[in-house]
């Protein structure tokens, strides 16, 4: 088999194994709950029978490996189980499906993250590469100092500063990002403006610094000096000599920061009361609605693993040593 293919398959297998391990960890979390949690979920007034019925519904009578199997099969089919909330001590069950809760919110989150990525990735790469090329210039130094400061700021600090200036002192942008399915696109864009701006500022700082470091590392290679000594111009050195070897590190930087973006989303959604999956998860943690927490965590983890996997594969298929085996 061609080494590229075998390496890619190997990496895919590893990704799958990681996913499996992660699903086990997330599943086990429900096992770690204290024994009386049924009582807690249903309230002190719940009768023994309703608690027992609840336990039966969760399948606590079955051995855990069977339940894990059921759960995984469900997840693969898009069934993430029933939410804990909406259950009453009387045994009346108004709980909703987790998948149903997550669905529309996931769309919102992807919308927010997608727009942020569209703006921040090209901008960060541009800044990172240009500062690496003109390193130690005034331009580089000032951008560096700025980003070092920005990465030290908590996301909510950046968010509130923006709200203070753009929404509170001057009513230019809305500070609440409450959208729903009926909100038209232009309105939607206006409402997510501040969350997107916040996320972009935070992500760009990280991504730009990492891009810069990766490019500088690359430019220190002996073959770059060799290219200079063979008379290649600055542009030629960058385009023909550095760039073909830069895909792997750049893909890693992008994947890392997009994964970071996914996490940053949680805080930003809460600040701007944006109905995304991050806010849902935080609410679920507060009310200890474990199935929802599990569902959200699984989605975050899958995104994270997928992004890293894609970066790995880009690294593999652009590696000349693998592309052209001995």
């Amino acid at each position, binding site marked *: 088999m061609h080494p590229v293919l075998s390496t890619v398959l190997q990496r895919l297998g590893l990704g799958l194994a990681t996913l499996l391990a992660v699903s086990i960890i997330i599943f086990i979390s429900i096992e770690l709950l204290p024994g009386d949690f049924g009582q807690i979920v249903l309230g002190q007034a719940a009768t023994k029978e309703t608690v027992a019925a609840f336990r039966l519904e969760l399948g606590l009578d079955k051995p855990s490996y069977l339940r894990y199997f059921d759960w995984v099969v469900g997840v693969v089919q898009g069934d993430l189980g029933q939410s804990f909330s909406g259950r009453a001590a009387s045994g009346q069950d108004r709980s909703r499906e987790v998948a149903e809760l997550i669905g529309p919110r996931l769309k919102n989150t992807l919308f927010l993250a997608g727009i942020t990525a569209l703006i921040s990735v090209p901008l960060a790469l541009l800044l990172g590469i240009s500062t690496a090329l003109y390193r130690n210039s005034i331009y580089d130094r000032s951008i560096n100092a700025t980003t070092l400061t920005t990465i030290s700021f908590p996301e909510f600090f950046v968010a509130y500063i923006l709200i203070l200036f753009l929404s509170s002192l001057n009513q230019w942008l809305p500070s609440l990002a409450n959208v729903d399915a009926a909100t038209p696109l232009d309105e939607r864009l206006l409402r997510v403006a501040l969350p997107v701006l916040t996320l972009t500022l935070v992500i760009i700082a990280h991504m730009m610094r990492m891009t810069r470091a990766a490019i500088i590392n690359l430019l220190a*290679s*002996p*073959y770059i*000096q*060799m*290219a*200079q*000594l*063979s*008379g*290649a*111009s600055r542009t*030629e050195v960058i385009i*023909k*000599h550095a760039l*073909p*070897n830069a895909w792997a590190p750049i893909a890693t930087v992008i994947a890392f920061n997009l994964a970071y973006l996914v996490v940053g989303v949680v805080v930003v959604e809460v600040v701007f009361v944006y109905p995304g999956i991050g806010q849902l998860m935080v609410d679920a943690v507060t009310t200890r609605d474990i199935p929802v927490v599990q569902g959200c965590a699984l989605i975050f983890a899958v995104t994270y693993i997928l992004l890293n996997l894609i970066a790995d594969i880009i690294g593999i298929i652009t590696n*000349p*040593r693998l592309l*052209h085996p*001995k």
Partner: protein
Amino acid sequence: MWLIGFFIRPVVFVMNKSSERGNLLLDVKDLKIQGFSDEKWHDIIKGIDLRLHRGEIMGLIGESGAGKSTLGLAAMGYTQPGCRITGGNIYFDGVDLANLSDVQKRNFWGDRMTYVAQSAAASFNPAHRLILQTTASTIRSGAKSKDQAYSDAMDLYKELNLPDPQNIGDRYPHQVSGGQLQRVMTAMAMSPRPDLIVFDEPTTALDVTTQVEVLSAMRKIVEKFNTAAIYITHDLAVVAQMADYIKVLRYGKEVEEAPTREMLSSPKEEYTKSLWSVRSLEKAEQQKSESVLSLEGIDAAYGSAKVLFDVSIEVAKGTTVSVVGESGSGKSTTARVITGLLPQSAGSVTFDGEELPKVLKDRTKEQKRRIQMIYQMADTAMNPRQTVGEIIGRPLEFYLNMRGVDKRNRTLELLEMIELNGEFLQRLPSELSGGQKQRVCIARALAANPDFIICDEVTSALDQIVQEGILKLLLRLQKDLGLAYLFITHDISTVKAISDQVVVMNQGEVVEQGQKTDVFQPPHPAYTELLLSSVPDMDPDWLTNLNAARQ
């Protein structure tokens, strides 16, 4: 010598831009370069003149830190990041490169002057095919069309004895061997038919048998196109084969310059003379006596890769056995088996009559004490956070239970044995020179009162003059303390200087072993012959004669 060459070599290939041989091409005047380190500017080149005529080859030699690479690059008007030219001129064909901008200099680079780097593996871009990189600057300058440049590159590959010259250029750098890559880089340097090529230690990273092929190829092609060259190396014998003139550098200054033959036969300066001296050191050979260590039928493997095959070696008390071989010959692995770091899969190690347990863990403290080891890189063999006193004192404390004044006195005694004084007790390794570091490592080994010391390439990282000191010290200690050495090295002249018996290894097997005089006496097994004949002599005709003999 170049004058003779002028008459002998017909100037047939006048494809290069040089009008004729003999005009002044490069004239470096009072060049000064500084480098930035430790937040300060330091002088690296302290005012050097260099004149090179068309068709001449100038050898630059010197020890590490002499500034030879910096000077070589500066001859092209290039300074490495963190360096700057602070004075002087570099006239190349009448143009002062020191005053040109990078953009202006680029017109010269890759066209009229080219560069061959030490590590070809790192200096080729992994993403492009070799022929593309070979011809890039020629095509860029417009001197040749793509097709012309490609077919010329194939001719050059052929000229350089590369296998399959028509197709080797389609490969990627990681697909060819180090020696081949170095020749491709020479082709790349020659492709634009430059006026000047700078060779920066092009064979240092190669094994001796490969080095010969690369040297021959390089010399052939430089002669053929009558290109002027600067050849940088620390190896005198190598430079003797390549250069018409030799310039000796030390501490960023010129020591002396002379035509190669004159320089070899009658060097004027003390320093230059001292560079020759290690070659003159020779040990009177001792006959085999009672053995202290013997390996019998050793097989060993790293995981599933078998690296030693049926190795048997015997070391007699108070004598030196040298193990010679190229990289991958298994000589260092043999040392790891003896020390117990790599348990053998078959065979036995007997020390002073008793068989040693295979694994280090199972050996007694006494067994560990009696076998000591000295490493190639003294830099990494000493903990940078411990003082010399602590380094030498630890074995005293650990093996011999010495404490307090006893320990201190013995440490001072050991320092005296390695010709260092008590002031060194408090120093850290970073505050020692290369030779001093290796001496401290020797003292650490001696502290255990061993019977047997493994010396793993102990002099190969050191400058010539320092090597001599270390070898003399080792010989004296052997005489005084009756030590036996297993001396691992790839350097034949060191073998001649120190050994009683010699073991030649190749690809995990012992090719030949015996008394030094016997091994160096023909007839040899084929590999020994190849190895011995590949080691350059200090004779400028050596390569010519060798190639004639091998034809």
